[in-house]
């Protein structure tokens, strides 16, 4: 008859093994398949384009970044990225001074307008970029400075 201690030790070992495999619900840290984790950890535009295998970005008047001049609440800053050009593959929103630059990226095809809006957290006043990756490989961007009066990263 195993002692209570032995039973508890075996359960703990089993739980640890299961957690390692990611089977335990609620504790499993399973990133979505195909998620570009490294891109969401890149700290600079250069690192981001290198991680995603993109060409060097060039500024373009055909790409637009929408955002407030001054954001009262850095936890909820409305940002939009759009372009008038056809042949867009991807739109990205970047906040330069956030712990990681990439906020969101959207795969665009012929089903949607190349224009998306969302809300982002900004830790401090920073440049914000809308980046459009074109089907032909060009990477175009627009930049805007957004001042933040109350930072949104918490803590």
């Amino acid at each position, binding site marked *: 008859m195993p002692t209570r201690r032995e039973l508890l030790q075996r359960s703990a070992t089993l739980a640890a093994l299961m957690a390692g495999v990611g089977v335990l619900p*609620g504790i*499993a*840290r*399973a*990133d*979505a398949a*195909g*998620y*570009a984790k490294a*891109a*969401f950890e890149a700290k600079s535009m250069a690192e981001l384009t290198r991680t995603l295998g993109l060409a060097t970005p060039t500024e373009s008047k055909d790409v637009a970044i929408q955002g407030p001049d001054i954001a009262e609440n850095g*936890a*909820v*800053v*409305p940002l*939009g990225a759009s372009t008038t050009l056809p042949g867009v593959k991807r739109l990205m929103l970047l*906040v330069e001074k*956030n*712990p*990681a630059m*990439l*906020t*969101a*990226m*959207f*795969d*665009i*095809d*012929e*089903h*949607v*307008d190349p*224009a*998306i*809006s*969302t*809300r*982002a*957290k*900004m830790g401090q006043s920073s440049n914000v970029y809308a980046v459009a990756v074109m089907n032909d490989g060009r990477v175009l961007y627009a930049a805007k400075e957004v001042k933040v009066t109350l930072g*949104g*990263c*918490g*803590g």
Partner: protein
Amino acid sequence: MTDPMRIRAQASGDKATVRVLMSHEMETGQRKDAAGKTIPAWYIQEVTARLNGAPVLSAQWGPAVAKNPFLQFSVKGAKAGDKVSLTWVDNRGETRTDEATVS
């Protein structure tokens, strides 16, 4: 179980503007609780939008998207009565899908 997403899809011409408000903490993993322990990251990583079952938009998000994320986009070829559905998957593997009819 999270709250349902609020999806509004309004047709105008041959497009529909879709506005979504999702319910999610979008925890960055940078905050600490009162005891000083870091609150683990918990955020939506993937979003897919479908029109009548066919994917029209997919997105990857990082933790910097604001809590209770808002998303707006315009889908082409949509008319009143079509079904728009949104699905998100977060870094814990949890997922949620909600649907709305284009008005």
